[in-house]
C-alpha cells in the first residue's frame, strides 16, 4: 500500500493499557499527522506520557494496535523503530563524558547509511553552538542538558521525535527558546514532533495539531488553532477555560 502525504505517521486503534491494576488508557482511536508538531495536552493522570511511551515501544499496550507509517509497530524491529522514532525524556539523563561523546554514542547506534548528522550539525539543530561539544555533559544547566538530549535523539536521524514534558523543569524563558528550536526542527529538518505538555500556552504557541486527553480517553483532536479557538466539545471548552483561569 503506497503511503501518501495524507497518511498519518501514527495510527492508534482501540488502544488500552493497564498499569498496576489501573487503566491508564481506555480505547484510544487516534491519528497523529506526519510532518507536524503535535501537542498532547490534558490534566495530570490523563495518560499523556503512557500514550507517548507506546509510540516507540518503551511500553506495549495491553490491547489494540499502533501503526507507524501504515505498519503495526509490533511487526517492526524494535531497535530500528526506536532509531526512527526518538524519545526525549522529561528529565534528561546525560551519559558519561563530553557532549560529543554523548552524541557519538547515539550515532554509533544508528544505521551507518550517511543520513545521521555530524555531532556539529546535531548540536546546532538543537540550538547550541559547537563549543559545547567538548564540555562535560554532566556539568551543564537543565536547559542545556535538555538540548543535548534533543541533539542526541537527532543523531539516529529519526523521522519522529517524541518529547515528554521537555520544558517542565525549565524556566519559562528557557522553555520558550527550546520550543522555538523544536518548531524549527519540524520545519527545517522535516521531523514529525509529538510532545506531551501540561502548559496550554506552550501547546498553542508551538504546535500545529493538538490532542486533548482526559482520564485515558481522547476528548478532542484537531488543528491547534481550531481546537483552542472554537472547540467542538463542551469538555474541551471547560478544560481550556479552567486552565486559563489559573495563574
Amino acid at each position: 500500500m503506497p503511503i501518501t502525504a495524507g497518511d498519518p505517521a501514527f495510527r492508534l486503534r482501540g488502544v488500552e493499557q493497564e498499569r498496576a491494576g489501573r487503566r491508564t488508557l481506555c480505547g484510544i482511536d487516534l491519528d497523529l499527522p506526519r510532518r507536524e508538531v503535535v501537542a498532547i495536552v490534558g490534566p495530570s493522570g490523563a495518560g499523556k506520557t503512557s500514550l507517548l511511551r507506546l509510540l516507540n515501544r518503551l511500553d506495549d499496550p495491553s490491547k489494540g494496535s499502533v501503526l507507524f507509517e501504515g505498519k503495526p509497530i509490533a511487526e517492526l524491529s524494535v531497535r530500528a523503530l526506536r532509531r526512527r522514532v526518538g524519545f526525549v525524556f522529561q528529565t534528561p539523563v546525560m551519559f558519561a563524558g563530553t557532549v560529543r561523546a554523548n552524541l557519538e554514542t547515539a550515532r554509533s547506534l544508528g544505521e551507518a547509511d550517511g543520513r545521521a548528522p555530524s555531532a556539529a550539525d546535531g548540536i546546532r539543530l538543537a540550538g547550541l553552538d559547537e563549543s559545547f561539544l567538548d564540555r562535560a555533559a554532566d556539568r551543564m544547566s537543565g536547559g542545556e542538558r535538555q538540548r543535548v538530549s534533543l541533539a542526541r535523539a537527532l543523531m539516529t536521524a529519526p523521522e519522529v521525535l517524541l518529547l515528554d514534558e521537555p520544558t517542565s523543569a525549565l524556566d519559562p524563558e528557557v522553555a520558550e527558546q527550546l520550543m522555538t528550536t523544536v518548531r524549527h526542527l519540524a520545519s527545517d529538518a522535516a521531523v514529525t514532533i509529538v510532545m506531551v505538555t501540561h502548559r496550554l500556552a506552550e501547546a498553542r504557541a508551538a504546535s500545529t495539531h493538538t490532542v486533548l486527553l482526559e482520564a485515558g480517553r481522547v476528548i478532542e483532536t484537531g488543528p491547534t488553532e481550531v481546537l483552542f479557538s472554537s472547540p467542538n466539545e463542551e469538555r474541551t471548552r471547560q478544560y481550556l477555560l479552567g486552565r486559563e483561569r489559573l495563574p
Partner: protein
Amino acid sequence: MSQTGGPIDLSWIDLALASALVLIAIALSQWQRLGLARGFMIGAVRAVVQLTAVGYVLAFLFTTRRWYFVVLALLVMLLAATKTATDRQRSPFGSLFGITGVSMLIGTGLTLAYVDGIVLRLHPWYDPQYVIPLFGMIVGNAMNGAALVAERLTSEMELRRGEVEAYLALGASPARAAAEPVRRALVAALIPAVNGLMVVGLVALPGMMTGQILAGSSPNLAVRYQIMVAFMLAGAVAITVTATVLWYRRRFFTAAEQLAIRTEV
C-alpha cells in the same frame, strides 16, 4: 588419620580442656552482662555437633571411596551454598535460585575440573581427600561472589534506570543499555578477589596453609598449595559472577526490549 610424622593426637579429654577457653568467653559475657553467654554456649555445642557430623561424613567418603558418593557430597555443598547466596540476594523478580545455582555450577565445576585434571592430575579423579576440601573453598568464594554481584546489579539497575531507558530509546540493545550497571556490579563482586590475592600471607594467614603445616607438611609445599588455592579462587569467582550477572541482566528486559522494572509515571 595418624600418619608417621603426623600431628599429635587430640583426644576428647584434650578437647574438654580446650573448652575451658570458651568457658572464659562465657564468664566474661556474664560478668559484663553482654547477653552473649547463651549464644556462646549454643554455638559451642553446635560447633561440636556439626563438625563431628561432618567428620563422620568425611570418614565415610574417605573409606568408601566411591565416585558417586563424592559427587553427591559436592552437589549437596553446591545446593547449600546456592541457598545461602540466594537468601542474601535482593531482586525485584523473586528468587534467583536457578540463575545462581547454574552459574555457580559452571564456575565451580570448571575450576575444580581444571585443578583436578590439569594442575594436580588426581588419581582417581574423585579422590575425596583433595576434591572435597578444594571444592569447599571454591564454592564458599563463588557463593559470596554470586550474592554480591546480583545484589549490586539490582541496585545499579534501579539507580540507573533512566540511563538504561535512554539507551533503549536510542535503539541500543539491552546488553549495551545495561553495560554500565553490569560493569559496576562485576567490579564490586571482583574486588574482594583482587584484595584476597593482595593481602594473602600478610593480613590473612590462610587456614588451609596453617592446617597443612600443623598436619606435618613442609612449609614450602603448603605455600605452593596456598598459591594454587589463591589462583583457583580468583578464577572460580570470576567465572561465577560473570555467568550470574550476564544471565540475571536478561531478567531486567522484556522480549520487546523494554525495562521490566517499574518506571515512575
